[in-house]
């Protein structure tokens, strides 16, 4: 192939977005966000091991609007990365790699992420209220 005929990397300014590419970059973004967000888990555990004052600090932070927003982002990222990660594991077995299956799998992941996030927050809020 002459070098002029080689396919180029997408130029983002004129690139038509597709479900598959958006989900791919979201998988990465959510993975990076989760890496940072999981520090919250460590903070929570250390506070629980340290005593009531430290634990109250975590609870106050997580109960504030910014804490709740972070927690919501964390659950959304987790469920997305989890569902799409399973999609990746299926691909690793050599299955569902054709174009049609990548779209079907992609929409299943989007739906499952929405349902799981909703269920988790409804359950959490119900638990909080009771």
């Amino acid at each position: 192939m002459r070098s002029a005929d080689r396919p180029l990397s997408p130029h983002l300014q004129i690139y038509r977005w597709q479900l598959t590419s958006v989900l791919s970059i979201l998988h990465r973004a959510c993975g990076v966000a989760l890496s940072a967000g999981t520090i919250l888990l460590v903070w929570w555990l250390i506070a629980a091991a340290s005593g009531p004052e430290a634990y109250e600090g975590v609870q106050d932070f997580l109960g504030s609007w910014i804490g709740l927003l972070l927690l919501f982002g964390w659950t959304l990222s987790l469920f997305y990365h989890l569902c799409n990660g399973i999609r990746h594991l299926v691909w690793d077995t050599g299955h569902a790699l054709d174009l049609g299956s990548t779209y079907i799998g992609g929409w299943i992941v989007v739906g499952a992420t929405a349902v799981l996030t909703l269920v988790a927050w409804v359950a959490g809020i119900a638990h909080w209220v009771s």
Partner: protein
Amino acid sequence: MMASRMRSPLGRAIGLGSAKEGVEHWWAQRVTAIALVPLSLWFVASVISLVGADIETVQNWVGLPLPAILLVLLLIATFYHASLGLQVVIEDYVHPELARLGLVVVVRLLSFGFAVAGIFAVLSIALGSTS
């Protein structure tokens, strides 16, 4: 190891690919991913049941054998998986060699540090060294 068996006979004979360690990295990322499917679902369900709980309730829960064991496993799998994933992101986007190498080292050390901190917290609660 499993990973060495996943190489083709030719690949094994030639020895090393361009990255020298790709198969092990790829394999570890998948194994930790599989472990994290049940562990993270269990963790989210547990946190939901602990919403609004006071510190005594949380300490009692962390101190139970099953939650303590699963939390330690979750911490190991999470930070191992995170350091492998972040390494790929860094290697894709950071081109100057020294910066790339430095960031990978920093991510590895931080992941290890956070994992140890979390595991220590779980064990100190479970083994009763906190008041």
